[in-house]
């Protein structure tokens, strides 16, 4: 289990959601930067309203690094293995910091591993980060029903994790299919999006389960981490 060696036997899904450079039209890329900018502005504003924003920064940064590292763990789906995106878990743990964290995480992946892209940084951040914020809201519903309960934590973790990935997947596939092949007709496009999304349902379930288990672990060991 190392992170230097990428076995090619895996995960198109997670890779597809890190859309590479050169693939999208410039207008879409610039649009992505605008939406990412707006989401960043929104998140930073919410953060500045928190009780102690300066304290949150080292915490969010180290967790960003931790999430980057954790996302490199190979999760086995025999006969292959995947890397999970964990944007749902990120939302549950980091709250509003999730968006800057994802933006920064993608930035690092782009320049360190050429995974994702620089022109597509905005698009990728929006596609992965906005669902993370939504996952945060989903997970926060737990507070209404009783957050000490482990079953509920697991359930909301599942919804946040699976939901986060599902939304990202649909958004990414929609963008890819509608922009790249200039010569596909509308029915073929729609069919492709459906097909890609359906193919990723197992991964969505896996993300949901994994997120649920981690959430329950954190609830037991360090509930403050889930204060999002």
């Amino acid at each position, binding site marked *: 289990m190392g992170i230097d060696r990428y076995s090619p036997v895996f995960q198109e899904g997670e890779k597809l959601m890190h859309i590479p450079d*050169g693939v999208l039209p410039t207008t879409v890329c610039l649009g992505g930067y605008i939406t990412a900018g707006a989401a960043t502005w929104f998140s*930073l504003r919410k953060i500045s309203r928190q009780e102690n924003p300066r304290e949150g920064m080292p915490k969010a940064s180290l967790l960003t690094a931790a999430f980057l590292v954790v996302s490199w763990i190979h999760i086995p789906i025999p006969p292959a293995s995947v890397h999970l995106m964990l944007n749902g878990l990120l939302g549950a743990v980091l709250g509003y910091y999730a968006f800057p964290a994802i933006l920064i995480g993608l930035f690092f992946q782009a320049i360190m591993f*050429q995974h994702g892209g620089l022109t597509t940084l905005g698009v990728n951040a929006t596609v992965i980060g906005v669902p993370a914020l939504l996952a945060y809201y989903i997970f926060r519903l737990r507070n209404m029903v009783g957050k000490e309960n482990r079953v509920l934590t697991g359930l909301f973790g599942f919804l946040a994790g699976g939901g986060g990935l599902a939304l990202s997947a649909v958004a990414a596939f929609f963008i890819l299919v509608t922009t790249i092949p200039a010569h596909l007709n509308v029915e073929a496009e729609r069919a492709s999006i459906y097909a890609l999304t359906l193919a990723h349902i197992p991964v969505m379930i896996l993300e949901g389960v994994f997120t649920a288990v981690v959430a329950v672990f954190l609830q037991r060991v360090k509930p403050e981490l889930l204060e999002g």
Partner: protein
Amino acid sequence: MKLQLDRYAYLETPLHAWDPRYKLVGFMTLIFAFSFVENLQLLPFMVAVSGILYAVSHLPLSFLLARLRLPGFFLLMMGVLLPFLSGSTVLFHLGPLSVKQEGCLDLLLISVKFVCILTMGIILFGTSPFLTNVKAMRALGLPSILADMILFTYRYLYDINDNLRTMQTAMRLRGFQGHKLKNLFTLASLAGTILVRSYEQSDRVYRAMTLRGYGQAGENRGGQDNEFKAYSRDLFGLVLLMVAAAFVAGQVLIH
């Protein structure tokens, strides 16, 4: 794990010496200009410009190839569908499938753009130390909190990764074999542990910071001290902007 994209940042070339702020602006503009290109006739020029810049940077070719290998592989895996799906002019048949011209050209366009843009990115971040580039971004207007987060993430990425490796080794030495689905729970505990340890460390780091004055009235707000001094020669580098503009204009005209 090697973040060593700035392994060669110590070399001395005009690109290395260029004021990092101008370099960032120049390269990002050129990168976007490349992404604007949709016409095959401009591709040779893109390749030429990329090649020239790479040569000037004195970065080793092996460095570039190593970094392009995997992403290129994945791009091809994704893009390999294009020749079969996209377009109407059939070039030849491969069994029941037909390879279409438009699809092939699409793939060519995407691939060349991809390689050129990535090359630009590698040059940009390979010819200055990472820290310098982040300071340049801050000087160009990146919000302080994001710049700080980037630097912190960078600082602790290695340590946290080392933590993970150590734990994985310990697990393996106690017989853990990562290939079975039932091990999901163990892997989830591993992930959770990494998160908890990082969180606890961040608490101690925050304390260390406040004890050295973080959050105080007289505090350094970063980016206000002028780290960068530009000379007129730095402006020459902005010829890149003109090159970028040429691509954009070319694309618009041909269209």
